[in-house]
């Protein structure tokens, strides 16, 4: 049998579809990643109101709950939940494919170009998923919050971070977010095919800049509460 005959028939193979293909799932990963990076950036900016005092932050929270007659927040939640679901689905299936692609490993593989961030994506991702569940139970539903008051988000924010263990977990989770974003923001441009020598340093610098900004400001919140700057 010739090599050409051993290749799977073109039309039949092509029929396996965009979402089943390796590159297709990477594009899903990248597109949902952009939604999630966009969200954490806006989330970080919104929380800056905490530095402006209780009234500003509570007013901002009120706006989020009431925009578009209270529908807006549910639209955002639906989009985010879908994005997170697709992101985890793509990551899981691609990871399983990658593990199956090398059943026998090397005795001592030398890493030359990869970064610690790129090699720990699946672990930083799992920690972030656990953190998001905790974060929702902590400051959205108040289930694991010491003294939650639905009417006063600012007080919840301050009292939540006064518990050093909780503040510590937030800081660790933000560092994981940093690792995940630094590789992810750059990586998604590659998955979308946005590579060109003129823009290569720009996309690396953009990933670094956005990561430092988001993570730096986010970490400042629990630290500001613990040091009494926000009280």
């Amino acid at each position, binding site marked *: 049998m*010739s*090599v*050409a005959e*051993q*290749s*799977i028939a*073109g*039309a039949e*193979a*092509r029929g*396996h579809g*965009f979402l*089943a*293909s*390796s*590159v*297709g*799932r*990477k*594009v899903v990963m990248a597109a949902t990643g952009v939604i999630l990076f966009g969200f954490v950036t806006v989330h970080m900016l919104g929380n800056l109101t905490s530095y402006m005092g209780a009234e500003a932050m509570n007013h901002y929270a009120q706006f989020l709950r009431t925009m578009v007659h209270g529908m807006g927040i549910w639209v955002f939640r639906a989009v985010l939940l879908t994005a997170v679901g697709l992101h985890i689905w793509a990551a899981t299936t*691609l990871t399983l*494919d*990658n593990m*199956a*692609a*090398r*059943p*026998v*490993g*090397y*005795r*001592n*593989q*030398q*890493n*030359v*170009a*990869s*970064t610690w961030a*790129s*090699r720990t*994506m699946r672990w930083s991702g799992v920690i972030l998923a656990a953190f998001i569940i905790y974060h929702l139970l902590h400051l959205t539903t108040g289930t694991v919050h010491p003294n939650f008051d639905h009417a006063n988000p600012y007080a919840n924010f301050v009292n939540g971070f006064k518990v050093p263990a909780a503040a510590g977990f937030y800081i660790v989770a933000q560092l994981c977010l940093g690792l995940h974003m630094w*590789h992810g923001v*750059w*990586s998604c*441009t*590659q*998955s*979308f*095919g*946005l*590579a*060109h*020598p003129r823009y*290569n340093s720009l996309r690396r610098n953009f990933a670094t800049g956005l990561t430092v900004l988001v993570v730096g400001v986010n970490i400042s919140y629990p630290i500001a509460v613990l040091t009494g700057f926000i009280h």
Partner: protein
Amino acid sequence: MSKHFNLTLHVWRQKNAKCDGKFVEYPAENISPDMSFLEMLDVVNEGLIRKGEEPIAFDHDCREGICGTCSMVINGRPHGPRERTTTCQLHMRSFKDGDSITLEPWRAEAFPVIKDLMVDRGAFDRIIAAGGFISVPTGSPQDANALPIPKESADLSMDAAACIGCGACVAACPNASAMLFVSAKISHLGHLPQGQPERYLRVRDMIAQMDAEEFGTCTNHGECEAACPKGIKMENIARMNRDFIKASLTYRPATTSGGGAG
């Protein structure tokens, strides 16, 4: 004359694809720093043959770095420690007396071990057969330069065409992904006018075959680019992704009532 030296090799020995393999230790004695890595293995093998043992099987052909046949992972790096160097072009002066060297085959589900350090890279041939070609009518040759091609396109095409299909990218990738190889072949044809008619069919066919061969997927570590003996760039992978996205968005399902004159 430069000083000869001794090494210890830890070599993956595997009888065939079905058997389990294991590492076996061999001394490599009186090695000249001017030998190539494969010549060093030839010396070790001659010793094994004299003792009546089975020599270490490894792939090699041109021994001048252009055929892409030699393939082994040396101390955890495909083709060894030097950049842009195939195993056959690696010299023993890159090592020193008393060094311990681990030799393993390319490790990927899609590259089954034939014997010891030799793997079956037929998966690459099947990917090429799926779309890595252009269809042209043969006949009398065209005038030279009848088709205008910008210098930049010719250069980028040639850079991608430098791929010798050795599989070091797959071996180096933590996910055993073949995307650097496939993207090099797609870019090599896609930068030229002759590659345009089948451009968007090609990218879908080759990626479908790549997936069917059970290679892993790219997570943008960059290990492939660092291991490639021909310096193929990851920019090609981005280009392949771009072509695939466009091909998937604009694909027209085949219909039975096609074209026709009139």
